[in-house]
Structure formats: structure tokens, C-alpha cells
């Protein structure tokens, strides 16, 4: 460790800026059979006007640590040691020793420390107006009468850039979009002018363009108010865009701490390096590097023409309604044999509906899907139930959620073998052997096939899902957000696995994702969707480096760049439609 004399002098010099100091904080959680040390000897300093990013993958203990700073700990947990010192004019207050229900702690929570949660929908009450919730927060921490508090609330909403704040103050949570809700949450956290702002994954539930706006806003508010900020995130891109200092957390310990530049350019700990590698790796187009030849120009295997899905245009006996929603609007594309086609878009862009229509688990309102298999071209949209079953053997789906998509009551052997058993292809010993073979193909130990899904991690479960999709020797795999639920290091592994399988088997992929880096890594061509329409279709390189359409440009430029010396988000192009 570096402790030269002048270094110490400089740190003491800076100490008057420190507003919160965490010393050797340890958190223990009592589980059924063991005690989990969720945080071990964590040391952090939050400085006025500075942003500290606490970064780590799921299960690293970053969220529990952040909550412990406000003494919010689940009932089975306890602070096992250490101090949380809140600097005050009168001296330091140790939050760790404060009474859970004491007045002092309540005045610190929301008073001196503001908290922004990940999920703005569940942290705002649906039965009160946005205004009344913020007014309550304002009045809890200051002596104001109702009309003053209302004025203050409108002012706060203006600060978080909610349009027409004097009208929006009387709206309900459900009348706000995801981004607006998060803005309202921020306004609430700022209600009592806190010195410290803790933001726990504030943009994880949001689309990239909204994420860029919210991060932008938080950063500006923090700088203008001189708050200290602790930002918890799993996304190295976000870290590079907003952090001054970075603490990397891994299994309860801070394995590395330093300025953002040091962490990104001279990472010292093996875990930090690994985390950065898997993030940076996704910034390239691996597919272009590994494929033999460009698949465009190969024969077409699946083609969609003028696919449209309209929801809500029913003609009931009380008269039809007027608010039909076009989830997918006139989308046409071709998939070539051996090609990986990416479909990107924000939530609500219709990309999932498009994928489901190709499989006809959602019936298209109009349009046509044609599949060119070994035999004559098949018109998928006109298939009978029986024909559809044969089609589903050639075109398979990999789900987003590796937990919900595997029947927890069946062993892995039964799950992977089920499609083979149903097809009546194999049974008994032959089926068992084939399952073992498939598991080996996806990089799992075949001896594990007697076990149930709950014995596996998220990444392993996704591998099981892939094995099930491969069981029937399909031609096309539709992967719907197949890596969205996984940590970044596992995400790269799964993508590499899919690429290596593709090399061995004759496969084409339709890869649906909201994550542009994943699509860029994996795909030959990318289709960009926006509000049900296919905005742009081009090669992955072209979409990511030289987008033509205005929407694509704004989308690409909103993606955080994992490089603190080259921040992209702050110079992004904005799109208004």
C-alpha cells in the first residue's frame, strides 16, 4: 500500500471535505445454516462535491453496504463491527451505534442523507399524488406550512426538469413514465437539502437514453449543490461516465479503491482487471473477427414481410375502442443462413412482440413469415397446429429469465430431454446419452443432470436453457434478451459459448436485446426498432460507428463508454420525436 509522508499530509488536508467516513464496516447476515459476511472491513470516504462509485456484480454486497450507511438493515442482519462517521460541526456522529427507531437516526435518514432506489415504481406509493409524497418528505425535515411546502415541491420538480411542475405535482405515479418517476424520486431525495446522496442502481430499470438523461441530471445537481454522492452500480460504463473515485467490491470486500483514471488505466487487482476485460470486450465486434465469410448473400432462411401487431383494436358489443396500439408496425427483414441478426430497441419498441410473432406464440395481425427449411418454403403464418409443431422444432427460443424458464420441479435431464421425448425421437438410455452430450456441448458437467435447477447459478441455468433449445437440432435460435439477467462477466461467456456452438452447428440467430454492446459483439447485422417501426437495418459495425438515422444516432451516443478519458454520454445527440 502507498503511504509516503507527503501522501498522508495531502489526505489530512483533504479531510475537511470528508462528510461521511466508513471505517472497517462489517455486516453479518444470519442465514439458515450459516452466517454470511456480506461486508468485510469496508473503508470508504465520501467527500463534498465528489462522486464515489461502488461497483460490483450481483451478490458483492454493494447494496447492503449502502443501505447500512443509513442503518437500514434487514432483520436477520447486524453490523458486526466498524464505524460509520457522519461529520458534523459539533463532532462526528457514529450512525452504526444509533438506535434503530431513535429520533436522531430518523432526522439523518432523508435529512442529511438522501436515497434514490433502483425501482421508482415500487418506491413511490401508487395511491398518493407525486406532490403529496414529496410535500410529506419536505415537511418531515423542516418547519413549513402546507402551502410553503407545496411551493418548495414545485421548485424541486422544476430542478429535476419535470415539465409543467405546477400541474405535474398533482398527478399520480402511474401517470409518470419510468424516467419521470425516477426524477420525482430524486426530487424527494433532495427535499431536505442533504449533504450526501446515495443512489442505488438509479438507472438500471431505465432505457439507455433515459439513463443518460437521469445520470446527466444527477451529476449536475450533485455538482451545483456540492453534495457528496455514493453511486452503486454494476455497469463499468456508468462508472466511467460519472465517477471521481471508484471502489470495486467483490464478495463483501473492497478489493480496489482509487481514482477513476487509475482504476480504468492501471487496475491492480485481478478481479478489477477481469471486470474491465469483460466490459471492454463487449465493445468490439467479436462476430466479425470469428466468422468465416459474411453470411449476407447466403441463401435466405427466414423472411418476414410487413409484420404488424395491433393491440386493443377490438370491436366489443359496447362498441370498439379508439386507442389501438401498434406494437409492431410493418416490419420486414430477411435472415440468411448462418447469420446473426440483432434486434435492438428500448422497452416498448416491439422487439419482443416481433420475436414472438416469428414463432407465432403471438398471432400477427397482418403480414407474413416464410421459413425456408430443407423442404419447400413454409408459410408460417398459415400453419396448422401440427405444422406449427414441426416448425417449432426448427426454430427455437431461448428465454430471458433463466429462473422462470426452467420448471423447478424437473431434473435437468428431464428439462433438456423433454423436447426429445415429446418428439418421440429418443427414450431411455439413448435419451440419457444425448442429454449428457448436450450438456457437455454447453459446457456443463453431464454428471449434473440428476440435479434440479435450483442447484445452478444464473449463468449455468442459461446454459441449460440453451441445451434445451439445441436438443432438436434447430436451424434458427431466437434469443430474447438471453443475457440481460446475467452479470457482465458471465454475459461474455454465454455469448462466446453461442458463437462457438454456431461454428460447430449450422445455426442462425435472431438476437433480441436492449443492450447495444451485446448486439455489437454478437451480430452480423442489426435492426434498430423504435415505437414498433424498424428504423434502420445495417451491419453491426455500421450501426454502431456510423448510424444514419437520427434515432439510431441518439441511441448509440447514449450508451455509456467504459473509458473515463473519452466520455460519450455528455456529448450525446438527442432525439425528439
Amino acid at each position, binding site marked *: *500500500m*502507498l503511504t509516503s509522508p507527503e501522501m498522508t499530509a*495531502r*489526505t489530512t488536508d*483533504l479531510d475537511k471535505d470528508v462528510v461521511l467516513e466508513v471505517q472497517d464496516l462489517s455486516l453479518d447476515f*444470519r*442465514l439458515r*445454516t*450459516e*452466517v*454470511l*459476511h*456480506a461486508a*468485510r472491513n469496508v473503508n470508504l470516504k465520501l467527500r463534498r462535491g465528489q462522486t464515489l462509485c461502488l461497483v460490483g456484480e450481483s*451478490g458483492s454486497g454493494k447494496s447492503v453496504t449502502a443501505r447500512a450507511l443509513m442503518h437500514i438493515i434487514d432483520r436477520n442482519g447486524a453490523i458486526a463491527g466498524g464505524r460509520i462517521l457522519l461529520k458534523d460541526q459539533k463532532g462526528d456522529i457514529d450512525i452504526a451505534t444509533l438506535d434503530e427507531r431513535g429520533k436522531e437516526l430518523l432526522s439523518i435518514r432523508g435529512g442529511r442523507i438522501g436515497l434514490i432506489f433502483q425501482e421508482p415504481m415500487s418506491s413511490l406509493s401508487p395511491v398518493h399524488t407525486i406532490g403529496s409524497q414529496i410535500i410529506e418528505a419536505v415537511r418531515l425535515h423542516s418547519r413549513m406550512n402546507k402551502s410553503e411546502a407545496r411551493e418548495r415541491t414545485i421548485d424541486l420538480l422544476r430542478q429535476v426538469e419535470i415539465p409543467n411542475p405546477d400541474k405535474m405535482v398533482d398527478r399520480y405515479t402511474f401517470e409518470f413514465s419510468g424516467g419521470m418517476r425516477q426524477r420525482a424520486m430524486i426530487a424527494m431525495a433532495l427535499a431536505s437539502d442533504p449533504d450526501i446522496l446515495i443512489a442505488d442502481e438509479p438507472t438500471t430499470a431505465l432505457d439507455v437514453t433515459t439513463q443518460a438523461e437521469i445520470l446527466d441530471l444527477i451529476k449536475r445537481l450533485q455538482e451545483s449543490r456540492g453534495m457528496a454522492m455514493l453511486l452503486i452500480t454494476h455497469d463499468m460504463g456508468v462508472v466511467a461516465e460519472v465517477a*471521481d473515485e471508484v471502489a470495486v467490491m*467483490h*464478495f*463483501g*470486500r*473492497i*478489493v*480496489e*479503491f*482509487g*481514482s477513476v483514471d*487509475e482504476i480504468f488505466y*492501471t487496475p*491492480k*487487482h*485481478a*478481479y*478489477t482487471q*477481469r471486470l474491465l476485460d469483460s466490459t471492454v470486450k463487449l465493445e468490439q465486434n467479436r462476430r466479425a473477427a470469428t466468422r468465416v465469410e459474411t453470411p449476407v448473400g447466403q441463401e435466405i432462411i427466414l423472411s418476414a414481410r410487413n409484420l404488424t401487431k395491433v393491440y386493443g383494436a377490438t370491436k366489443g358489443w359496447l362498441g370498439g375502442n379508439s386507442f389501438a396500439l401498434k406494437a409492431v408496425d410493418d416490419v420486414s427483414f430477411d435472415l440468411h443462413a448462418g447469420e446473426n441478426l440483432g434486434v435492438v430497441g428500448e422497452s416498448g419498441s416491439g422487439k419482443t412482440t416481433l420475436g414472438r410473432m416469428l*414463432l407465432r*406464440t403471438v398471432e400477427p395481425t397482418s403480414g407474413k413469415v416464410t421459413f425456408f427449411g430443407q423442404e419447400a418454403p413454409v408459410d408460417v403464418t398459415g400453419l396448422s397446429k401440427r405444422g406449427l*409443431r414441426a416448425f*417449432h*422444432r426448427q426454430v*427455437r*427460443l431461448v*428465454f430471458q*429469465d433463466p429462473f*422462470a*424458464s*426452467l*420448471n*423447478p*420441479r424437473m*431434473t435437468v435431464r428431464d428439462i433438456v430431454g*423433454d423436447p426429445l421425448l*415429446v*418428439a418421440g425421437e429418443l427414450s431411455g438410455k439413448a435419451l440419457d446419452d444425448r442429454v449428457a452430450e448436450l450438456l457437455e456441448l454447453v459446457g456443463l458437467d453431464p454428471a449434473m443432470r*440428476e*440435479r*434440479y435447477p*435450483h*442447484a445452478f447459478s444464473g449463468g449455468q441455468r442459461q446454459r441449460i*436453457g440453451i441445451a*434445451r433449445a439445441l436438443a432438436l437440432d434447430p436451424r434458427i435460435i431466437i434469443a430474447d434478451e438471453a443475457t440481460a439477467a446475467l452479470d457482465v462477466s458471465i454475459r461474455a461467456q454465454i455469448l462466446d459459448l453461442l458463437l462457438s456452438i454456431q461454428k460447430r452447428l449450422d445455426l442462425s440467430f435472431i438476437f433480441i436485446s436492449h443492450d447495444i454492446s451485446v448486439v455489437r459483439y454478437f451480430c452480423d447485422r442489426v435492426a434498430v426498432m423504435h415505437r414498433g417501426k424498424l428504423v434502420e437495418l445495417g451491419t453491426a459495425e455500421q450501426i454502431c460507428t456510423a448510424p444514419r438515422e437520427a434515432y439510431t444516432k441518439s441511441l448509440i451516443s447514449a450508451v455509456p463508454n467504459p473509458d473515463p478519458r473519452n466520455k460519450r454520454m455528455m456529448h450525446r445527440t438527442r432525439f425528439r420525436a
Partner: protein
Amino acid sequence: MTVHTFIDEEPDTGPSTTPLKPSKATSDMGDANQWTLIWYKFSRNKLAVVSGFVILFFCFVGLFAEVLAPSAPDVSRPQFTNAPPQSLGLFVTDADGSSRFQLHVTGYTMEVDPASLRRSYVVDPEQIVPVGLFVQGAPYKMWGLFDANIHLLGPTDPGETMYLLGTDRLGRDLLSRLIHGTRISMSIGLVGVSISLVLGVVLGSLSGFYGGVVDTVIQRVIEVISSMPTIPLWLGLAAAIPLTWSPLMVYFIITLIVSLFGWTGLAREVRGRFFALRGEDFVTAAKLDGSSERRVIFRHILPSLTSHILAVVTLALPTMIVAETALSFLGIGLKAPIVSWGVLLQEAQNVRTIANASWQLVWPAAAVVVTVLAYNFLGDGLRDAADPYES
């Protein structure tokens, strides 16, 4: 400005934990199936486990009622009407003053108050009735199959009497009647629930799986049935039972009546679960795997439902028992000579009995309360354990 620090160690491979019991290695649940996991979760709810044993005990009592009861339920002795409970003694003192082990009860002497003609019983320490285990007593036909006369506990001389819980208005042994009542009351719940279960699961599944018109029709039927006031309806139906029918027939009709109104809740529960499961990814996956609708239901949806159904059934059982008790108490359910807890409570309808022979109210009521509570605790425990996969 910031000091760059790091831990100079290899990254950890897993979260840091300390086992609570160092001697016992943490068990690997990787190849545990659904029932093992449910049992694991259930067994941590001590109250539910204890309740389970209570239920098992009652079932055991009901099953071996003839052996466990000290005498036949319908033997009446006019000289012992409304006799109070006797307590079981362990040691007797012989004439020579030595004390020896002998299970016994002390007899009564009856006194009649000359003014009011009211009978009162006084314990007479001189009258010792020896009691033994597995004694020969009143003959019975075990399960209606073979003759026997062995009783677990009873006076060694079949001519003597033993009333551990007292007697009723006609001088019948309350303990024997309670034990025989256990058989009827417990089984009426089980039989009634089985009928409800079949109706509920079939109609609920149809409703939940097909949705649409089928669902609408079934749901409206359920609403109509559950909107009817139950007691008057039971009264009407029970009153329609011909008096000439044998008690056994009446018993079956009563179960049927009770269960015809009990299935609606179950059907709703099953339907709700079906709706939830139909949207699950793994069910979609099974459909895309080529499974037919029947296979999806029987291979994927129903196995996920069974534990929930079990929990709902356990919670439905006590309502059946209470319904039977209520009907019999009102005198429109089971009738003598059949004995059930409700029939026993019927005896305790008047103030005189409650004032002078309160045991006739206390014991049957206690049996009902304990059983219903035990079923509820057990059902709660099962419901909490029914889905071992949620977070």
C-alpha cells in the same frame, strides 16, 4: 489526490460464510426434489408439525375407536345418569396397610335429595374398581369385519363401570362416545373434502386452462352457489332427507350436502394458480417443445399445483367439520344412534346440563376446537411451504 489502494490477494471464489453449527456440514440440496424441499421448509414451522401430530393422533383414535373406547357408545345405565368424571388412581392401600400398584377408579355412592329429588354422586373411597390394560369388555365387530372384545383400558371385571369423562343424560360413557364421535367427525371432513377436491380441481382447471366462455360460465356458477345463505339451505336439504333412511345413508347425504358448497373456494384457488402458471416461461417453453395441451397440464402445471392444493384442502377440512357439527347441533344433521361431536353437543343444549354436568359441553367442544385449530395451523404451515422455489 486519492490514494490508490488494493488488496494484494487472489480474488475470492465465493462469498465468505461461517457455518452456524461447525460439526454439521451444510447439506447439499442440489438433487432434492420438490417434496424434499417442501418438507424441509415445513419442518421448520414447529407449530405446524405439532398440529400435524395432533391430527394424526385424532385420525388414529378414529381408526381404532372400538379398541380405544372403554365401552360401547350406546350402553346406558340408568343408575348412573349425569355421573361426574372419575379420576384414574395408580396405587391402592390394602387392608393390611401396604400400598401396591393397581390402576383403579373409585366408585360413587348416589344420594337423592329428598326435597328436590335431585341426584348427587359422592366419591366413595371404599369402592375400588380395578382397571387394566387390554381387558375384555363389551363385544364389538371391528371395522364391521370380525368379532372382538378387547379394550385398551377398562375395568377388569366387565360388570363394573368406569367413567373417566363422566356420563350423559342416559348414563352412557362420554369418553367412549367421544372416541366413536371422533371417527364420524374426522371422516366426514375427509370424505366431504375428497368430493370437493374432485369438483374443485376439475372445474377449476377447466376454468383456468381454457378461460373464455368456459371460465365465465364456471365462475358465475361459483358465484351463485357462494351467494346462497348456507344454514337455511342446509336446513332445507337436510329436512328433505326421508326419515326412513338408515343412519348410514343420512351420513353420506350429509357429507354430500356439506361438500357441495365447499368446492367453490378450492375451484377459485386452482383457477388462480392455473392463470398464474399459464403465463410462466417454463410453460411457454413446454409448448414450444411440442408438448400437447394435455401434456402441458399433466406434466408441467398440475405437479406445480399439487402442493398448493394440499394446503387448500387442509384449510378446507375444518370448515367441513364445523359444518357437520353445526348441522348436528341444530338437530338436522346426523341422528342417533350415530355419534358425532355435533350429536354429543346436542346434549348440551339446555342450561340444566351446562350447570350440573358441564363435562358434556366441555369435552366435545374441546375436541372440535382442538381439531379445527390444528388443521388451520397445519394448513398455514403447508401453504407457506407449498412453493419452496420463491426467493
